[in-house]
């Protein structure tokens, strides 16, 4: 098992300035401190829709890498998106799930089927051509560069430990200034 913050710090070293990143809930609060950047897409609502927003971005901006840092509880709410993404097959979409078996943002309750659910199995069955599971930070560090250099869609299950209570100011994710900054950054980057 990896610590999420350490895992995301490793990932951040391989994220380019032009990449768009969609971190979800607890990962979002870690990520925006690790990689504060206007191309973090933070306002994807609730109920697991981040991967769907990511597909829209991937279809609309095929020139950019789109990286989703999904939550396991979030993905369980939108499992159909695995099928939709695999069918649409955007080569620029990289779908990570931060898998700690916990609804960390909602009181630390376990996700259903916590000890049995197989996200890689879901992704393979849905048709993702590339599927990985990481639970060792050293191996993740060795492989993440190549994984992000290859064609998508890619799915990776990041086995992490729960980080416990965090201070969460949701205006950092859902405030209008966040969307305005993202829109401006994407438009500027289009020039």
């Amino acid at each position: 098992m990896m610590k999420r913050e350490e895992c995301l710090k490793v990932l951040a070293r391989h994220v380019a300035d032009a990449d768009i990143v969609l971190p979800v809930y607890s990962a979002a609060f870690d990520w925006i401190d690790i990689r504060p950047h206007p191309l973090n897409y933070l306002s994807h609502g609730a109920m697991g829709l981040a991967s769907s927003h990511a597909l829209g971005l991937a279809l609309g901006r095929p020139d950019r890498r789109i990286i989703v840092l999904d939550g396991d509880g979030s993905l369980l709410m939108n499992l159909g998106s695995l099928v939709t993404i695999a069918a649409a097959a955007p080569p620029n979409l990289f779908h990570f799930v931060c898998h700690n078996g916990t609804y960390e943002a909602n009181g630390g309750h376990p996700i259903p089927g916590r000890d049995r659910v197989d996200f890689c199995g879901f992704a393979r069955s849905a048709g993702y051509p590339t599927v990985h599971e990481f639970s060792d930070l050293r191996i993740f560090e060795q492989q993440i560069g190549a994984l992000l250099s290859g064609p998508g869609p890619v799915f990776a299950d990041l086995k992490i430990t729960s980080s416990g209570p965090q201070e969460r100011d949701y205006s950092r994710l859902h405030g209008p200034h966040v969307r305005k900054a993202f829109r401006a950054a994407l438009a500027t980057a289009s020039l």
Partner: protein
Amino acid sequence: MQQGVSADIRTPEGFLRGSSIIAEIKASRIEFVLSVPDITTSEGLLHPLSQGSAPRLIRVCKEDEGVGICAGLSYTGRRSLLLIQQTGLLDSINAVRGVAVEYALPICMMVGLLEKEPGIPPRQSRRYGVRIVEPILDAMGIAYHEIEEEADVAKIRPAIDDAYAQSRPVVLLIGRRPS
């Protein structure tokens, strides 16, 4: 926004051409159609759309996925349309609430009204599932337009243009099966 529509003059024998709607969709610069099949629009819209290359059809598993995809696309400057049934719209209310309304994004939805009686305004339908749609949209502050006769097709392009110009959602209610 068409709200509080009274019992207007409509004929059950009226008609609506799928080809006219598709022409308007294309004229509205829609590049992507996201859809879960809807029985009202299946033959007249979805089948023909599935046979063309533009707009690109993305089949989604559930309607709220489509709301998210449309949202992502909206930031890239690519226009999209979510083609669904009102049952799917009702199922996606939270996504529409959060993503379309509260984030103020141009989510354009074309919604077939399952079991709506031709010639009867949606609010006067005997079907509970039809009757409640417009009041719900009113409560959410979402613009909508009824598309039931061929003359209504002209509402589509201005409605979509307005949604993008104002960055807000719009719903186009398809009240009969397009031919």
